[in-house]
């Protein structure tokens, strides 16, 4: 058991509550930075994808996990970021370092439009509306071929900094990791200030939030904006990492997999976004690995991956709604409170209040 003696208000909100936490994170930092030494090229490309997806998941988690607004159109925002960056650097010769924020900002602007229905719709209806807007963007990409290359896609180059080109996967990995780090710190900061609290307030009670002086329309729009900005930045990194983008990279299934990421990782937690990104990136690898060992009837099925997504989602919602992060907390709790852990500690309580809205 650990206790902390708080002597300043900062102690309540600092990023690392205990000194040991800081040590663990530094250790994690070392492992992350040293990864290229021990991993092969394939492993590194997977890790880079984890980083890119984690950025999207951070943003989507802010929107869905913290603000309570579902979006099934995030692949579209991811696409806007990717194409903005690809077109700016490719066709117009703009530097990547300008195209990256531009991709984020343009995605944020599109995010406002995707978020507009959120001012009036909730839950399932919002999901359908955002899904529709996602399809619109997908179709625009296919049909506006003079700009986007249509179904043929676009070739994208790797970014250059001075004389150095991020051509190796290792160097690009470091680029993604540093951007992920910045984005995580920004997210953590937002969440411990009035902005982040306002988002959570909107999720928990509309009426109370507005009576506390929170402008619902403005904050919902801001949530979509920030979330889209994250997706846009990630999209830009994705385009430059893959060398090539086409409409098939931004389908509806991608939107779903972003959603699976945050549910599996843990809705409403920053750690969850990263856990979810790791899970979703490794799942297809795991499936293709096990395919050979499965009975032929299952192993040869085309939709195996999609079906597995669905199954995983259902199992998590049923048995671990807090996702991998929730599981992680429980394991941590077990060791911190050893031997006082009892089975009912995390039993969900039944609630009987709030009958009226």
């Amino acid at each position, binding site marked *: 058991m650990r206790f902390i003696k708080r002597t300043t208000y900062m102690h309540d909100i600092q990023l690392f509550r205990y000194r040991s936490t800081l040590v663990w994170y530094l250790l994690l930092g070392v492992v992350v930075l040293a990864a290229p030494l021990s991993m092969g090229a394939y492993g590194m490309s997977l890790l880079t994808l984890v980083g890119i997806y984690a950025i999207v998941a951070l943003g989507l988690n802010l929107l869905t996990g913290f603000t309570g607004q579902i979006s099934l159109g995030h692949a579209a925002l991811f696409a806007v970021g990717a194409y903005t960056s690809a077109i700016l650097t490719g066709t117009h010769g703009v530097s990547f370092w300008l195209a990256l924020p531009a991709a984020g900002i343009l995605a944020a602007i599109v995010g406002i439009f995707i978020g507009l229905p959120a001012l009036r719709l909730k839950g399932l209806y919002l999901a359908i509306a955002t899904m529709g807007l996602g399809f619109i963007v997908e179709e625009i990409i296919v049909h506006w071929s003079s700009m986007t290359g249509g179904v043929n896609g676009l070739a994208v180059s790797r970014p250059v900094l001075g004389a150095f080109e991020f051509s190796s996967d290792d160097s690009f990995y470091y680029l993604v990791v540093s951007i992920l780090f910045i984005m995580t710190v*920004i997210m953590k900061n937002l969440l411990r200030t*009035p902005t982040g*609290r306002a988002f959570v307030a909107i999720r928990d009670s509309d009426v109370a939030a507005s009576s506390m*002086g929170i402008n*619902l329309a403005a904050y919902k729009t801001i949530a979509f904006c920030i979330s889209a900005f994250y997706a846009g930045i990630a999209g830009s990194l994705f385009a430059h990492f893959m060398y090539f983008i086409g409409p098939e990279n931004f389908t509806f299934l991608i939107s779903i997999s972003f959603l699976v990421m945050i549910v599996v990782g843990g809705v409403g937690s920053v750690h969850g976004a990263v856990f979810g990104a790791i899970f979703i990136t490794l799942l297809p690898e795991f499936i293709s690995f096990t395919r050979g060992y499965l009975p032929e009837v299952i192993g040869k099925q085309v939709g195996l991956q999609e079906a597995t997504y669905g199954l995983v989602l259902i199992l998590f919602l049923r048995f671990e709604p807090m996702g991998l992060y929730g599981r992680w907390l429980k394991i941590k709790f077990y060791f911190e409170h050893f031997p006082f852990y009892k089975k009912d500690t995390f039993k969900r*309580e039944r609630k009987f209040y709030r009958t*009226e809205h």
Partner: protein
Amino acid sequence: MRERQFFSVQNLSIRFGGIQALKDVSLEVKPGSIHALIGPNGAGKTTILNCISRVYKADGGTVVFKGEDVSRLKPHQVVSRGISRTFQNIELFSNMTVMDNILLGRHSKRQTSLLNDALFWGKSQRQEMQFRERVEEIIDFLDLQAYRNLPISRIPYGVQKNVELARALAAEPDLLLLDEPSSGLNVEETQDLAFWIEDIKEDFGITILLVEHDMRLVMDVCDAATAFNYGSVLAYGTPADVVKDPEVVKAYLGEEG
């Protein structure tokens, strides 16, 4: 000439479908007083509070606060004018801690921009410290220390009501609207509440308008009372006078027969 009014409601009307919930209701609250709204169920007491805090849009009438008509404001603008409220059926942010709930009460005092917050440096950090200092004072005032870091879903009902009060106080209002603050509380908790309501008036100088069914509480702490039935004012005066008013007696007990 009439002196400038602190808070008054003039000819407030609202209709829900076939029900005229409020009909030309006028009332005035004197600064520094505790004013009770009483009446049988369905009289329209909560509706008045909801119209003042703009949860409902009134069909007609004005609400004047410190010389400004606040009846055309957006719901989120009301609190910045100095009016904050609690709810009859607790409307807390149930997945957040007590601390975060009360901190949200200070949202209307926010000075930082989104960019400030994203960097969490300088102004944003100072503001957060100030917010927390003020919230700790309120936690001390309402004896919430033991619950500070618990999520709302883990604390008892009576304490949840106090957290709502704390959250409304955190906005540093000039006028506090309490919607049935004692409902669901036991005798002891109601006693505490009575002391707090008086302290809020005397120590913080906050005027209170409350909807209340517990007549003992009303008689003990309130300076004035307005009685309602079927959306219209029946009587106004000191609580002792109002409960003796024949119209009020009739509304509660029916006619002598």
